[in-house]
């Protein structure tokens, strides 16, 4: 008797590969979507603690920090409602969106963000690559975030190392990804800017200046780079180099205000407060929307001995612009420092400031600028 032996049916190769792809995408999707990826987001913050300590409940202003889904994410960002955004992002299906981790960063909860990164794992692992193009699915912004995070956690040298490696990565990608060479060139330059920023934050101004000089070789005579580098030289105390940078900025309509502002900084570095004040006054007359110059004007007035005038300028600035100047930590710090000088006991005044700020400040406001324990 004959036995029929059948060959095992051969699955078409293409179908197998597609199935594998789908399985892979699904498993990646599930691992990224999983709620287990995310840690709990804390409910309160240090600013709330201050409010509770100094202001009785009936006078406490309402902070707009509650989760209002109807607002939509862009409105939440504009109002600095980072806690809400974090919750919102978590509720979304996360693909390769960096929003969750960025939000947590803005909240100042860097330990949490770091832990999230740990969960994501190695950003270069094969699963995170697109099978067809063999390119990383990980967005560049997320890589930068990973690189800069150690700075927030007080390990700045690790951040410097990671950011430098990212610059090398950009150089490599210029060779690998031939369709987007200019994109990677731009990213390389941006990475150098981030590097310079982190040098500045650990007060190594000469390394920051060297990095900016490197950018200048790639973008010679770019006014933003020249202006920024000049400012950096002033902060460092190198007045001659600062002037050299500022002299290279050509006078045009677009640059008139910037040139005057830079001139004012140069005069301040030489201790010429009267001349600096006069120039800043001119800038303000020309552009009353320049809030920055108002703050700097107030600072000049202090050095000229005009305490009351300086306080007036800062109070006007913060009252008329509650969402920008009013929640700007530097402006608030300047104002509180001057209150301490003006009054025997400045606590009352600082509590007033706190009430004003609380109405508009979001989750990322650093409350130690008010100088209350």
């Amino acid at each position, binding site marked *: 008797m004959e036995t029929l032996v059948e060959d095992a049916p051969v699955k078409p190769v293409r179908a197998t590969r597609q199935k594998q792809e789908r399985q892979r995408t699904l498993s990646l999707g599930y691992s990224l979507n999983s709620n287990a990826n995310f840690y709990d987001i804390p409910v309160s913050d240090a600013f709330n603690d201050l409010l509770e300590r100094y202001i009785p409940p009936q006078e406490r202003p309402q902070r707009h920090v509650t989760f209002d889904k109807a607002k939509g*994410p*862009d409105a939440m*960002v*504009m109002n600095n409602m980072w806690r809400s955004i974090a919750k919102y992002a978590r509720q979304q299906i996360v693909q390769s969106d960096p*929003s969750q981790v*960025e939000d947590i*960063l803005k909240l100042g909860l860097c330990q949490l963000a770091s832990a999230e990164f740990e969960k994501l794992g190695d950003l270069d692992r094969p699963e995170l690559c697109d099978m067809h193009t063999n390119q990383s699915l990980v967005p560049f*912004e997320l890589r*930068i*975030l990973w690189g800069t995070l150690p*700075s*927030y956690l007080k390990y700045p040298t690790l951040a410097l190392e990671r950011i430098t490696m990212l610059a090398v990565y950009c150089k490599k990608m210029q060779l690998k990804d031939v369709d987007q060479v200019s994109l990677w060139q*731009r990213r390389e*330059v*941006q990475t150098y*800017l981030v590097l*310079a*920023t982190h040098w*500045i*934050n650990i*007060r190594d101004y*000469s390394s*920051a200046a060297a990095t900016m000089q490197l*950018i200048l070789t790639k*973008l010679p005579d*770019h*006014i*933003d*780079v020249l202006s*920024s580098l000049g400012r*950096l030289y*002033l*902060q*460092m*105390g*190198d*007045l001659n180099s600062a002037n050299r940078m500022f002299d290279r900025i050509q006078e*045009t309509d*677009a*640059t008139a205000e910037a040139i005057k*502002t830079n001139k004012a900084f140069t005069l*301040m570095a030489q*201790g010429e407060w009267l001349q600096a004040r006069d120039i800043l006054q001119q800038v303000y007359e020309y552009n009353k929307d320049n809030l*920055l110059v108002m*703050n*700097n004007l107030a*600072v000049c007035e*202090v050095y*000229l001995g005009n*305490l*009351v005038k300086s306080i007036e300028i800062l109070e006007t600035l913060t009252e008329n612009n509650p969402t920008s100047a009013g929640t*700007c930590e*530097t402006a608030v*710090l*300047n104002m509180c420092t001057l209150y*301490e*000088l*003006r*009054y*025997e006991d400045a606590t009352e005044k600082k509590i007033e400031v706190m009430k004003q700020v609380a109405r508009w400040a979001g989750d990322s406001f650093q409350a130690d600028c008010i100088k209350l324990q």
Partner: protein
Amino acid sequence: MSTAIHSPRQGSISSPNSQTQDDQLPHLLSLKVMRLSRPQLTSTLPIYYESNTEKTSPLVDGLESLNISDLTASHPIDRNQCNEIQIRDFGLSQMLKLPSAFGNIYLGENFSTFISINNESPFAVQQVGVKIELQTSSQRFVLSDTTTTPLTALEPQKTYDTTVAHEIKELGVHILVCSVQYNAPDGKRRHFRKFYKFQVSNPLAVKTKLNNLIDGRVFLEAQLQNVSAGPMFLERMKFEPSEHFIFEDLNQVVTNNDSVFGDSFIHPQDIRQYLYMLSPKDDQNDRISRTTNALGKLDIVWRSYMGDLGRLQTSQLTRKAPMLEDLEVQPFLQEPVRVILEHPFKLGIRVKNHSTENMKLVLTAIKTKMGSVLLSGLSSVQLGDVPANQSAETQLEFFPLSSGLQRVGGLRVMDLLSGYTKDIDHVCDIFVLSHLNDDIESNI
């Protein structure tokens, strides 16, 4: 109440009870001070995001609008040039931040303070006179005094403000003494004082190392360390020699005159070594410069944050004066010579009499002390009479037996009149070439 302690931000404050005269009633005026070191530009850590046109995300839109209203963000000057670089990632803003703490104060810096007197009472006070003094361990400086031209009236809740400045020239404890006198509404003359104590320390530590060369030149190494708490920009680092010397600054790269340090920025705890070669000003009459202790001074000007200026001049840098030998033996060559193995060469020897007596000198060679470069010819040469401060010269012929870097030495000079002898084990070093065609010339 007049001895209230204020926030530690203002430096440590001490108000000894015995010195304020009327403590019985609270004072109507209050006094506050704030040190005016330079303001600083706020530094930030901007969040990185990309705003390319293909994909928009609500997060990016929100971050963009936040960036526009952020006073501490770096904004582009000309929006048309944004394609090449997004300057928002640069973390040094244009917002100035007032000094919010006293900080450290160093010798050579300018101490500048804001003083504010506030009328805390609901009554006007009259004839307000203020005297501000700085007391160091040795002196008392008056920084401001309006006691002879007092302010006629100070209304309730109004302030009387003034700024004072002083260049700090001493180390140690300094006390800012603020004395205020005024007429209370009841006509009584009242008076109180406040004291603010602070320490002045050295921002720079200078150490020197010296090499006294045989020909009267001095090789000076000045080691400069930044021992302050913050970085410094050295605007000026100049050596001023004492009257007996001229100097050569050895701190430039030979080929292009750049500074060997690259830049002038010195971090806290960093050290820099500056090298100078000092030569006697008067070559012929160099007795004083050979024996003097005083070498010169360093004149240093630096700037810290936002141009805060400091300047220091060191005291005279000294050395232990070298013992002046009566006889000095120096080699010299008329022109560069190529010294080749087993070929004789001539070397000039100059003997100088530094003593105050005449000498009659003989130059001899001691074979056992000569190494591989031997004297060729007579082993002793009569140099004859050499008066005080004069020198005699002669030419000696030498014969090198080994190649490479070799020592010429093993000579002895003797004064026939006094019996004084001096052995010179090392006259100079020469490089002996193996072959006629090799390349290096000997030069002293």
